[in-house]
């Protein structure tokens, strides 16, 4: 058993969110569609009724959709909002855009990843050639006034310019995408130590760049180990402890999304979520029953997953479950 009093970074989720996530913050969430969304932290933000968040992600699914559906998000910069086969377009996301309840700025996945990388490098932008000639360049979701008034938002969505290194008579074009420096980034991982050293098993997506670009980082983990014990295999670790501000032990913290090697996505739950989120009234009922009506993530899992929990546990050899019904 690890004593959490001995280390100031290891704390409970309620305290971590209370300390580091404020209304109006620019928030970035890790994971990718159906995998390693920081669901426990997302639910805690909803429970604490933190609102007016500005959300960044590249391709996110369940975490994004529940945050958006709960009304926590006012603006979003993103490349993709979908949940695999379960919701090709995230459901609350779709509804809130159509009803003009959130503002969206659309980028590509590579651009969002570059924007986090730029933030992590401390440079104001990075160049690329993706999206030349498309509406990613031509159509802007945030107007100039909004960009002027909120100094945390980049002054422009992007800039197309001549390649300054070109040898051609008619110079080739490049697209500059602005850096992102979130106030706080939420990551869920398989393993971390009490100082915050973080080990992600399987694909890291853009979690590492997202964390390094951020002013503060909350890491939730399925397994919390003694400080220094991950140092025996440093090549497997991605984030040094000094990048992490709070580390929280939350078993099944990515549920209902998957956490490679630990558990699979809960396909039956994600299917039923599609119906529970179908209208705003139904989604409010879902929030009342599953999130606001439960005190923490373990109660949420009891209610949402119940006896299926055994079935979603990963086969240690493959990293996913052979038991869960996916049809």
């Amino acid at each position, binding site marked *: 058993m690890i004593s959490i009093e001995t280390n100031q970074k290891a704390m409970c989720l309620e305290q971590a969110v209370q300390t580091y996530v404020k209304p109006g913050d620019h928030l970035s969430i890790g*994971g*990718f*569609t*159906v*995998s390693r969304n920081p669901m426990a932290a997302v639910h805690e933000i909803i429970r604490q009724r933190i609102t007016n968040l500005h959300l960044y992600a590249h*391709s996110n*699914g369940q975490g994004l959709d529940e945050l958006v559906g709960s009304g926590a998000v006012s603006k979003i910069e*993103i*490349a*993709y*909002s*979908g949940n*695999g*086969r*379960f919701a*090709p*377009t995230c459901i609350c996301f*779709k509804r809130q*855009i*159509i009803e*003009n309840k959130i503002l969206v700025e*659309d980028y*590509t*996945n*590579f*651009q969002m*990843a*570059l924007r986090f990388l730029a933030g992590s490098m401390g440079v104001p932008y990075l160049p690329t*050639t*993706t*999206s*030349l*000639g*498309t*509406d*990613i360049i031509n*159509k802007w*979701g945030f107007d100039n006034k909004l960009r002027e008034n909120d100094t945390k938002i980049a002054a422009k969505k992007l800039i197309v310019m001549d390649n300054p290194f070109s040898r051609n008579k008619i110079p*080739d*074009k*490049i697209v500059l995408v602005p850096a992102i420096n979130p106030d706080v980034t939420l990551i869920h991982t398989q393993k971390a130590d009490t100082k915050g050293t973080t080990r992600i098993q*399987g*694909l*890291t*997506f*853009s979690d590492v*760049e997202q964390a390094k670009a951020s002013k503060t980082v909350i890491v939730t983990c399925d397994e919390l180990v003694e400080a220094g014990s991950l140092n025996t295999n440093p090549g497997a670790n991605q984030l040094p402890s000094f990048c992490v501000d709070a580390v929280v032990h939350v078993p099944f913290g990515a549920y209902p999304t*998957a956490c*490679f*090697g630990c558990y*699979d*996505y809960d*396909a039956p739950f994600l299917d039923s979520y599609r119906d529970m989120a179908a209208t705003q009234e139904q989604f409010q009922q879902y929030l009342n029953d599953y999130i606001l009506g439960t005190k923490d993530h373990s109660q949420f899992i009891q209610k949402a997953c119940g006896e299926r929990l055994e079935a979603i546990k*990963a086969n240690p050899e*493959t*990293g*996913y479950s*052979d038991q869960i019904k*996916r*049809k």
Partner: protein
Amino acid sequence: MTYSSKEIMVLAAARQIKNKDIVFCGTGISMLAAVAAKHIYAPDCMIFFETGAIDSKLEKLPLAVSDSRVMYGAQVFCSLIDSFCFMQNRKTGSNIVGIIGAAQIDPFGNLNSTMIGNYQDTKARFPGSGGACDVASFVDTNIIFMKLEKRKFVKILDYMTSPGWLTGFDSRQKQGLMTRGPSAVVTDMGIMGFEKESKHMVLKEVYPGIDPETIQENVGFKIDISKATQTLPPNSRELKILREKTDPERLILTKGDI
């Protein structure tokens, strides 16, 4: 042997994959086509996903590109940034074949996977680019999957998410995109290509039993259907592997939507 329109569509795309190819695919039917290609025609091709999984084992069909099933037995895990860099660097860029889908396509193979309506007043919303615009910008060979419907094959897109041949001729190069536009549009009735000079969509192949006129009726703009040849029907070996090995759980084959 009887087969569904979805089965011939998957196989028609999979037949275009060669052993030397590095295949980039998205979710759903494009993933099924990539896996079918590996199982049936091109065992040495390598499948990779924008999430960073390279040469995954794919013993079970993933339901998303972030599914743990793309991670099991992979050769390398890289980051999102790395996977898009493989499309651009000089060593691997030209070997990559992209397979992507969309909600709308125009006569030059430009794609919309973002929204319907005016951008400030959205009537319907799709997930957004994800990596689709990136692959369409970066790779030389891009195969597009589309269900053949008039509302999907439109003269003018509501939003251009991913570049095709833009406005045709050399407009793509003029905008600064140095790679080729899409090579084929695989539908549930036939396969379209793009005319050599103008880059306008033309009908290349029709599936057995489909009348080229029917294809024109389902396209919202005029295409040349005069030179279309007939696609070989799937043989029993192709269908057996697709049904018994590639998608034995029928996770994608039975679902109605393409």
